[in-house]
């Protein structure tokens, strides 16, 4: 249903291609809602207001700085230039920060997908002593705010020699109670019959898990991917605390730092923003059709 937006350009480009928004049509929807114009009336202005800053960010990334730092600012570039992108990729540590974040996010994602789905399956299907208590303990951790954990985790990581390494950034993201909960709820919603049939055919527990269960779990894994990447890719406060040397910065720290250092070079800043944001937007667009469905089985309704 939303594939039309997925196959096209990124959303910002999507709207720049047709700056005049398509007119809402009240006729032509058959058997649908009673008052489609009302929905359009709510959605059209909201969608435009929500998209506008990102569209402008994208345009600015391709503008020469002389178009931006003038009064009144130009809304449409006098000419398109890649100058901002060239600057971030040649004059700064930007490529390094981007690579660091890719590493941190990849490790975090791998950890989440493997550990949370294993644990989610264990809690949903396997019977073992201490299961209820352990699950309760894991779920209890969601109540503790990260701010409480920052200081002792900093001290602990310093003792382990992790401070100022990429490990400090990804270790807290290897698994999460939310991920375990999400996967457990998904596995509970699956019919048992398939797994039982496979067990009778002589498949081991791990075999059942990898061959039967995981392939069915694609929607839940897609949702877990989005949430994990959202957290790991966008995290700012923890890397700020745990990382101090510029070579180890994550992209979010880099953005925040060079926003201060280059505060009038808007095309470079917006180019940096765009490059740092696009990967998540793409992941989200690919995964979004699984989203609403996953939300309802996870019990968040």
């Amino acid at each position: 249903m939303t594939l039309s937006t997925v196959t096209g350009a990124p959303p910002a480009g999507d709207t720049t291609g047709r700056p005049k928004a398509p007119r809402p049509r009240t006729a032509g929807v058959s058997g649908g809602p009673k008052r489609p114009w009302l929905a359009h009336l709510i959605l059209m202005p909201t969608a435009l207001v929500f998209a506008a800053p990102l569209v402008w960010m994208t345009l600015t990334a391709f503008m020469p700085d002389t178009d931006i730092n003038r009064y009144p600012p130009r809304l449409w570039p006098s000419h398109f230039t890649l100058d901002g992108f060239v600057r971030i990729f040649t004059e700064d540590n930007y490529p390094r920060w981007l690579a660091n974040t890719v590493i941190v996010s990849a490790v975090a994602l791998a950890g989440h997908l493997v550990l949370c789905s294993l644990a989610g399956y264990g809690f949903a299907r396997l019977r073992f002593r201490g299961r209820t208590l352990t699950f309760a303990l894991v779920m209890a951790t969601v109540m503790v705010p990260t701010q409480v954990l920052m200081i002792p985790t900093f001290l602990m990581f310093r003792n382990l020699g992790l401070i100022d390494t990429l490990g400090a950034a990804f270790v807290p993201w290897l698994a999460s109670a939310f991920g375990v909960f999400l996967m457990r709820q998904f596995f509970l919603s699956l019919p048992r019959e398939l797994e039982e049939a496979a067990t009778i055919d002589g498949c081991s527990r791990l075999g059942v898990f990898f061959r039967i269960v995981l392939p069915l779990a694609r929607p839940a894994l897609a949702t877990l991917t989005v949430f994990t990447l959202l957290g790991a890719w966008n995290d700012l406060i923890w890397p700020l605390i745990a990382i101090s040397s510029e070579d180890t910065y994550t992209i979010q720290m880099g953005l925040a730092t060079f926003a201060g250092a280059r505060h009038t070079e808007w095309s470079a800043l917006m180019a940096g923003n765009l490059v740092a944001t696009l990967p998540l937007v793409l992941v989200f667009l690919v995964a979004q059709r699984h989203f609403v469905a996953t939300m309802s089985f996870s019990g968040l309704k």
Partner: protein
Amino acid sequence: MTVSLGVRRAPAARRRRLLPDLTGWGFVLPATLVIVGLSLFPAVWALLLSLRDGDLITGGAFVGLQNYRDMLDDPDLLSATGHTLLYTVLFVPGSVVIGLPLALALNQPIRLIGFYRTCIFVPYVVSAAATGILANFVFDPQFGVANTLLQAVGLPRLGFLQEPGQAMIVLVVISLWGGVGLPAVVYLAALQDIPRELTEAARVDGASGWHVFRHVIVPQLRPATAFLVIWQTIEALQLFDLVYTTTKGQPLDSTTVIVYYLYQQAFQLFHSGYGAAVAYGLFILTLVVSSITLWYSRRGEATA
């Protein structure tokens, strides 16, 4: 633990009991170790730290509840708490109240729905750092497009993030831009779970659209609303990233929120003991607000 329970059992029977236990633990142990090891264990440690006057290098001396007493007469903490509560009071109802009509509209099978949905959800994935830089750009008092637009429609120009009286409001507006996507998704999922028969039966009984909404749909959405209020409240009480990338607590400390103050205390002034105490204060505040929300939504369920 298995051994002590199975002492008197035959070895074969014991093995039969042990195997499922080992399999189960094998599945859940790695994630459990990471999660519990990185939250419950440090949480206890933080509590002990909050009873000492440590400086992040040394543990410091045991001071009992002195840090907590200091919190009560700390005017900066008090004003930071005020800023956080102001932000929370504006952001939480704002995001939920805007999210619901958006979800209702997004639930309609109309044209362009994919385009609308994408536009509304995408800001949710934009990081606070990128959002902050973008906000500095849009709300720049001199060159920003916000003032250009205000002037174009004949309104006076504003200082936005550089004006103590406006900065917090602007932060709320920016957060709503990035934060409405979640209520919209959650409500959309909840709406799709309301059985059709329920709304149709109400219509057949002669209820108007508004009545169906008020007396059928809203009560069905109550669990989603409770979840969202708690979730958004926790997010709001923990506001940090956006402040760090826009105002850094300025102008005149008007946007110094609790977590920003905590960050300064613990990691810039190295008052780790005091920082830990402030963190626990925030924890308690979060628990109180969440409990009130839960209690209120349960009570509503009982009387509805």
